[in-house]
């Protein structure tokens, strides 16, 4: 048993933190205010190898493991939550399924440029009428010779505006539910699709969230990941991994909120002493620090389990559930410690609250995580035996 990072992991942490301190923290508030996609930051992430972290070097990636990815995700999100989710989607939801289900031709064509950051990816599962109930999707891809003809609308697509490679989950056999679902890679340059409205969001405002509109888009059959009917498995296994990234994003947001609140508590005076000397403030700080550590351990456990090739779905669900709700609590307390200054934009506390909120919703709501965890727990503890 060991909780010390290897040299490589330490190096990743240092690099990511250096980048976050120098490049992200100074502009995170501006990115939030303007809502502009941080294109130059994303380009620099690519230079660091952070857009395809757990992809083999052979396929253009950095060749790190999932623990390194989780560590980097925390640090980048600590600097800027919007940049964090852009990175998370490209790594977890686009590179990862192509890496696991793609054939060599598909990897060469998409995984290499995605991992190198020459292209940016998005993942399209949710629809206006189906979120948690993914199998209730309506988008269809009907076979016509060597092509699928895709029709439907996808919703809440992170990176939707900028991405030009889309991992799209569709019904190839609408008469079936789960079994009729397939995964396609849609190359927007070759087979353009429509971009719907860009959502105006509570937080992570620098990342775009759009709908994608498919109207008779003809996608070559060779773009399918795995077999027909594999799509639900592709989507769910992808989200298992994605949850590690989102959990780490939530952790990074909590970490910076905590650091700022701690610094503030050491400066701000009231009743003749620093507010950090009051028991009430100290209790908040102690709980924040403890919960942050608990979340980090859950995330590392999920990442290491994935690296070891174990069944990690329960661990990643626990990590995501706990880290996202922890982040909501911690950012809430951080704002409270700042008092009125926490509520205005002169400080960052209110932004962290807004940025943290989505982590309880996307890539599986807290409610979905609880269903996953309850199912696994009852199985393990022998319900009904």
């Amino acid at each position: 048993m060991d909780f010390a990072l290897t040299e490589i992991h330490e190096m990743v942490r240092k690099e990511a933190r250096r980048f976050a301190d120098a490049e992200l923290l100074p502009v995170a508030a501006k990115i939030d205010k303007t809502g502009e996609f941080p294109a130059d930051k994303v380009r620099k992430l690519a230079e660091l190898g952070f857009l395809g972290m757990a992809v083999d070097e052979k396929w253009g990636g950095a060749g790190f493991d999932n623990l390194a990815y989780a560590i980097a995700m925390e640090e980048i999100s600590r600097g800027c939550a919007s940049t964090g989710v852009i990175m998370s989607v490209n790594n977890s939801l686009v590179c990862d399924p192509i890496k696991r289900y793609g054939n060599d031709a598909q990897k060469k064509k998409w995984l290499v440029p995605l991992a190198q950051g020459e292209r940016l990816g998005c993942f399209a599962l949710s629809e206006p009428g189906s979120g948690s109930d993914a199998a209730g999707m309506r988008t269809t891809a009907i076979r016509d010779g060597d092509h699928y003809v895709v029709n439907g609308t996808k919703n809440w697509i992170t990176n939707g505006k900028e991405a030009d490679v889309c991992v799209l989950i569709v019904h190839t056999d609408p008469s079936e539910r789960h079994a009729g679902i397939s995964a396609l890679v849609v190359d927007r340059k070759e087979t353009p699709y429509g971009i719907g409205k860009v959502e105006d969001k509570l937080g992570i405002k620098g990342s775009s969230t759009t709908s994608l509109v498919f109207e008779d888009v003809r996608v070559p059959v060779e773009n399918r990941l795995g077999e027909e009917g594999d799509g639900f498995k592709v989507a769910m296994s992808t989200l298992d991994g994605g949850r590690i990234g989102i959990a780490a994003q939530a952790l990074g947001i909590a970490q910076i909120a905590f650091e700022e609140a701690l610094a503030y508590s050491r400066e701000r005076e009231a009743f003749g002493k620093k507010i950090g000397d009051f028991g009430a403030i100290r209790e908040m700080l102690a709980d924040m620090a403890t919960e942050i550590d608990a979340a980090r351990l859950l995330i590392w456990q999920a990442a290491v389990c994935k690296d070891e090739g174990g069944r990690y779905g329960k661990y990643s669900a626990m990590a995501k559930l706990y880290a996202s709700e922890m982040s909501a609590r911690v950012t809430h307390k951080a704002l409270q410690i700042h008092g009125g200054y926490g509520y205005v934009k002169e400080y960052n506390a209110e932004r962290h609250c807004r940025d943290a909120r989505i982590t309880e919703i996307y890539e599986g709501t807290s409610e979905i995580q609880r269903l996953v965890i309850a199912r696994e727990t009852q199985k393990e503890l022998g319900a009904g035996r």
Partner: protein
Amino acid sequence: MVDFHPSAAEAVIAAKAREYARGTLAQQAGRYDDGEFPEGPARELARLGLMAIKSPTEYGGAGLTQVAYVSALREIAWACGSTAVTMAVTNMTGEMIATFGDDAQKDRWLRKIASGEMLSAAFALSEPSAGSDASSLGTKAVASDDGSFYTLDGTKSWITTGDRAGVVLTMARTGGPGAKGISAFLVDPALPGFGVLRHESKMGLRGSSTVGLAFEGVRVPTHERLGPEGIGFRVAMTALDGGRCGIGAQAVGIATGALEALVQGLGERKLVDRRLGLTQLVDFRIADMATRLEAAWLLVLRASQRKDAGLPMTREAAMAKVFATEAANFVCQRAMELATAHGLGTRGRIARALRDVRVSRIYEGTSEVQRIVIARELVAGLG
């Protein structure tokens, strides 16, 4: 390298504890809840090598790690909290003798602890008016003129297995006020002037005795002083750093037992009304319970592993204790509510867990003290 797996030896001793806990001990635990001291289990724990897990093998101990200790303790607590706390205080006291004692002291006491020749060991720090503020303790130890013994006078409170112990590690004041005036002594309860006061009647852990101790002119030989004069507070704090990992593990073990009893009870009844969506509400609570226990256990393991690696771990131990004991209380409360609502056959067991787990937020440093410890380092800029 980050690695969540125990070593082979750690896994073996945890498995041994698990086998005993889930067999004999689970069947007997109800008896000890009725107030009977778990004498049989205490002897069995010694036989299994679980009473001196970290003591060196040359003194009969298992020579293993803190990770091994908390892993085994969690398994025992799963079945019986009273037995677990007896195991915890005995291991902790033995570890202090192994850490701070001289060869003669180790030879004299550790073998008896490891072999089960003594049922348990005890740790006497708290007093009627010194709990969280331990450095203000008032029990006095006055050196004799010839330096051959100390005379101890004072009263200790809340001493786990204080009436059953073969040795009582006692903190007493040899010098001036404050932490630096405190020394540690290995007191043989057979010495004249040592007396057991009232047995507390407790909400939970009813099989483990909790007593007051009276020291009335107890003459303790100088060779039973643990380390030099003035290190008593350091001994106590070192004991508590490790002890807090243990209490965290105990709490996780008790709560895991409650969660399992809940899940199995629900499985047996199968009467949860699906039409009202109650199944999902129960599922959600189970998910929250399992998640908090998982996080709690990781914090306990992290603090324990740091202790094994010789790294500073006061803050990590405090985090583990406050998080684990509060998570465990949450789990036992929720389990009790659900078990009662559904009239489960396992609710008696869950009720015992709820009563047993409550004190974990209090002893070996209350939740409030843990938060003070954590925040002190943070605000001082050490975090």
